[in-house]
């Protein structure tokens, strides 16, 4: 505003606050909440560089530089949990993500509206079931006489409790994620498909393009921005893989394939009380996560000229 140009910022702010005092007042609880529960923990990251003792607190605990990080990187478990984290989340991304798109495309081909609605409602259902119940079901179904074990036995696998054998864990986890997230993950694509111009389809049909060609040349390209946005977000979450489900499912006999960074943090920090060390591991995890998000965002900007931010 031109007539304000000469007035100092402080003056203008004061006047704005006087005029809109009630709006500012309403923000106070929000401000306090985020300072305490989001910004204080951010400050608390200093403990990653400390030999943190709860009795001494953030201010009096001894600083140890990068000792916690060095301990983590030289730990024999480091390679294992990094591998598991990446393997589980990449498997999940590469299988689950395309499937949600395919499911959305197939559902779009269903012309009976009522049937479509019912399928949608039913396919969202597993998403709302709690992790505890899902894991309870998994434990039952893969136990030595569970349904899934029965099916595997038919294909010549030995009968055993699948959660006791490390080689099955990735498969169990990814399958349960598909079961739970297929319908729900497709919502956004279904919504985007509805927005695809019908005229383009009609024009292409007149030109003799069949269904498959139209899906490939019209529907998918129009979905591309949404697909890339979701992909970037998913890549940003690669490092924070399935924390509570793995915590519920894993046991020492399968740590080899099931222990991931976030569960390692929880176990070391909360159960074994190695606070400084586990804060350092957590910090490593979130730094890598943020880097992945930035890289994938830049790539999508370069390659497809769409980006999340």
């Amino acid at each position, binding site marked *: 505003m031109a007539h304000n140009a000469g007035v100092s910022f402080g003056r203008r*702010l004061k006047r*704005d606050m006087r005029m*809109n005092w009630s*709006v*500012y007042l*309403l*923000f106070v609880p*929000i401000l306090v*909440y*985020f300072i*305490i*529960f989001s*910004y*204080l*923990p*951010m*400050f*608390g*990251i200093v403990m990653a560089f400390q030999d943190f003792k*709860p009795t001494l607190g953030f201010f009096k605990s001894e600083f140890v530089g990068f000792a916690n990080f060095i301990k983590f990187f030289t730990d024999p478990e480091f390679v294992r949990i990094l591998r598991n984290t990446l393997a589980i989340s990449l498997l999940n991304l590469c299988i689950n993500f395309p499937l949600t798109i395919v499911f959305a495309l*197939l559902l779009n*081909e*269903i012309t009976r509206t009522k*049937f479509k609605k019912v*399928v*949608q*409602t*039913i*396919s*969202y*259902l*597993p998403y*709302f*079931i*709690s992790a*505890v*119940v899902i*894991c*309870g*079901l998994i*434990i039952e179904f893969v136990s030595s006489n569970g349904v899934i074990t*029965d099916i595997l036995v038919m294909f010549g696998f030995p009968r055993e409790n699948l959660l006791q054998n490390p080689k099955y864990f990735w498969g169990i986890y990814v399958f349960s994620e598909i*079961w739970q997230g297929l*319908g729900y993950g497709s*919502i*956004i694509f279904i*919504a985007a498909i509805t927005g695809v111009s019908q005229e383009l*389809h009609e024009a292409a*049909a007149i030109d003799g393009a069949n269904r498959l060609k139209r899906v490939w040349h019209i529907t998918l390209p129009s979905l591309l921005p*949404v697909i890339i946005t979701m992909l970037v977000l998913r890549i940003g979450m690669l490092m924070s893989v399935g924390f*509570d489900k793995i*915590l519920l499912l894993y046991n020492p006999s399968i740590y080899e394939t099931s222990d991931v960074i976030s569960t390692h*943090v929880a176990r070391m*920090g*909360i159960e074994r009380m190695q*606070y400084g060390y*586990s804060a350092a591991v*957590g910090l490593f995890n*979130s730094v890598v996560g*943020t880097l992945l998000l930035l890289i994938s965002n830049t790539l999508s900007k370069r390659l497809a000229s769409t980006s999340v931010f």
Partner: protein
Amino acid sequence: MIEKRSVSRVIFNICNYGFMIGLCVICIAPLWHVLMASISDPRMLMANSGILWKPAGNITFEGYKLVFRNDFILKGYVNTLFYVTTSTLLGTMLTVLAGFVLSRQTMLRTPFTIFVIFTMMFSGGLIPSYMVNRSLGLVNNMLSVIIPGVINAFYIIIMKNAFEQLSSSYEESAKLDGASSLRIMVSILMPLVKSTIAVVAMFTIVMQWNAWYPASIYLPKRRDLWPLQLIMREILVQNDVSKVLTAGDAVKKADMVGNLVKYCITIVGTLPILCAYPFAQKYFVTGVTLGGVKG
């Protein structure tokens, strides 16, 4: 559009419908199995393998009687209801408030928005948050399940977008009449964004109903404050029914009844959410779209 009825199209349709039906069966089968098992004869249940499509043996509600007579489980149910109600009321209220403030034309609007969004990108992580909450005295305190995480930046941004889409004429006329900001928000703007509020409330309800981890780290010694999910974890995941069954039951038929109780508590703990969500469906489709496209 007129579609050519080619042979390949018909085959595709048959496969597609078949696939969709199969998918629905796979989605429902595990829950159906649990429902059927929960009313089965526990002795027959032990011998059964595979998915139960109908109850094994005579239908019995013995398991449900046990579940509903059990003080421990009932207490968990009451706790969960309390946590869900309080955190939904508080969370939704604060989210609306924050969304409203961030959508107003004040000078600090941009800094405030950045202040909120920043928490979406960076967080202290599990351990520093635990330490902060611990020093606030939240360990073994029921507030630990309600307060941390009661609002999040993502919902605030969704709320802010909803308020911003409203025409400013509503507000201006009310301002001329001398209404305060709070009043404008409550009586004029909130009714106009009620579907977004419903989305936020619904996601908070589901999140809180299903949550078990915060309670497990903040309330380790206060079993009387445990939400239902934590009790379910003990029974379903850790396979321990000893604390749920009374002495008399345990001696007589612990194994069989324990098995039945597992199924019954799964149904009791899941059904309320599953009954509610088809009604909320029309809201969460808009909610996810809003969040995904703009968030």
